[in-house]
């Protein structure tokens, strides 16, 4: 396997007393889609912003290619952004409503010196629009004239405008109608294959993640509790949290005629339980979970999980 495009080591982020991200290790293989799943409050969006340095990590390393991303300052970082783009959840807020779609698509080319002259850039903007399935006439219209799905297409076109190696998509379809979600997911999949982009795909929706991702990491309270190839994780979840998530997802098969319930809410990130963070909601919790935090261990087939049950 080639070196990963994006790698984080012991990535941490605290906001005051809140430990949003606790020692996250990620490795995104080039050209693949990596899914980060978790409930809201699990810290997955914070990870997205950390790896793009939209917010600064408290500690830990981020490597992008063979560069230490956290060492990059001001102008170098700004130029590096050409190679890593983001798609946000909210297709209404993430587009500047005062710029036409054409301007929105030309702007990233302009700031990163892509193409020569306005005409070439506008041509490229039009071809990007065609690629995401929007007509040329969209160029001179404003975002508010489009539906949510169309806006997300615009956002995707904008992300592609700089020909990035990495796209971080933070819940790109959760604000959309279910009927539109599939179209956007297919579009993202096509784009990723065609441009050989690496994608970090963040979602709370397990069905969506299964549909688009090659590899998956499950986050709980700022930590990764399980990671592995998609089919392994879905077919043989090793961590009780993953098991609970999978069985509580609507449409999932019920074992023993009932669903493994995920009791209660995710605890607040400023009062994380001692030992294993999941023990307060885990149906299998025992004494050791209270005292000792479980380590990630190999369960075979490239799958790892952090649970004391695996020692038994």
């Amino acid at each position, binding site marked *: 396997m080639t070196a990963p495009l994006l790698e984080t080591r012991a990535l941490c982020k605290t906001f005051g007393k809140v430990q949003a991200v606790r020692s996250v290790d990620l490795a995104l293989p080039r050209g693949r889609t990596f899914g980060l799943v978790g409930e809201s409050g699990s810290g997955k969006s914070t990870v997205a912003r950390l790896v793009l340095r939209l917010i600064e990590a408290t500690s830990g390393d981020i490597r992008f290619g063979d560069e230490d991303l956290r060492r990059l300052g001001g102008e170098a970082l700004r130029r590096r952004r*050409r190679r890593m783009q983001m798609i946000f959840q909210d297709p209404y807020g993430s587009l500047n409503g005062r710029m036409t779609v054409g301007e929105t698509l030309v702007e990233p080319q302009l700031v990163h010196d892509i193409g020569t002259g306005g005409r070439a850039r506008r041509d490229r903007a039009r071809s990007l629009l065609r690629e995401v399935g929007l007509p040329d006439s969209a160029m001179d219209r404003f975002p508010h004239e489009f539906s949510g799905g169309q806006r997300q297409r615009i956002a995707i076109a904008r992300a592609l405008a700089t020909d990035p190696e990495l796209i971080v998509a933070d819940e790109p379809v959760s604000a959309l109608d279910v009927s539109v979600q599939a179209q956007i997911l297919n579009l993202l999949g096509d784009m990723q294959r065609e441009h050989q982009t690496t994608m970090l795909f963040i979602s709370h929706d397990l069905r969506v993640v299964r549909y688009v991702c090659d590899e998956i990491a499950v986050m709980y309270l700022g930590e990764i509790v399980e990671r592995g190839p998609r089919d392994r994780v879905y077919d043989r979840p090793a961590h009780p949290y993953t098991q609970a998530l999978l069985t509580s997802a609507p449409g999932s098969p019920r074992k023993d005629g009932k669903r493994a319930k995920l009791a209660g809410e995710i605890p607040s990130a400023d009062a994380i339980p001692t030992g294993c963070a999941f023990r307060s909601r885990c149906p299998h919790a025992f004494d050791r979970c209270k005292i000792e935090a479980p380590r990630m261990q190999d369960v075979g087939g490239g799958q790892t999980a952090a649970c004391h049950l695996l020692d038994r």
Partner: protein
Amino acid sequence: MLRYLGKRFLLILPTIFVPLIMVFLLLRLSPGDPAGMMLGDQATADQIAALREQLGLDRPLHVQFLIWLKGIVTLDLGQSIFFREPVMEIIPRYAGVTILLTLVALTLAVLIGVAMGVISALNRNNPIDRGVVTTAVLGISVPEFWFALLLIFLFSVTLRWFPVSGYTPPSAGLIAWGTTIFLPALALGVRQSALMTRMMRSSMLDVLDEPYITTARAQGLPERTVLGRYAMRTASIPVVTVAGLSAGYMLGGVVAIEIIFSLPGLGRLLVEAVARRDYPVVEGGVLTIALVLAVLNLLIDVLYAILDPRIRYK
């Protein structure tokens, strides 16, 4: 864009017309009679009646109003009762000062307000921000005339940087004009600039939280583009709205400032004309102020369309 402007332009008419009716009625319903004022205590009832007839004051109200309206359309605002010369010749002599004063004050207010608001927002909750906000609260609380007196005391009497009062027209040299207009404009604009500071600060803070600002940064746009093109452009729209209101407020506040700084402006002329019951001058003055305000508001509508292109296409 043209349609938008056309519509805005048509809306000017009621903006001018309504104050005119009100002034016309108010003057005629209030006690005092220009004929009596002109002839003095010694005049006989017959003399007064004769003069009233000559001035057209004996006609019914609606006839007087229609005659006057006809005058406006034909650019004839009548004769000043006091100056005994056409109002159309008097007004321009005074209006220039007032319009320039208001424009300079408005410009100062917007510049100060936007700059302070942005500085404040970018320093959210640190001492600089607190300093600006506190100053703005002070600025809002200070009455203009008092601030004007403070300015005169500090800059004219103590430091002697500016003249105490009086006016030099711009034709006599821009610098000389600047020294006579700066303090009055500052006094007139300070309160509005404080309002704009607060408005700009809060709308800037709102905009900076918008996802598209994060997106712009994530795309690698230089920070000055993010702040200037994205954030400030959007954040300044509420300030433009305030500027429109401020213009109206300033055209009212101009009276006190013109009196304090002895500027030969429309505000002072109006106050004096009211005291003299010089109806034509008062009406002409109000018409001028209404026109100036209407034109300023038209400019502000154009500014809206520049700042928010969506408006142009609606």
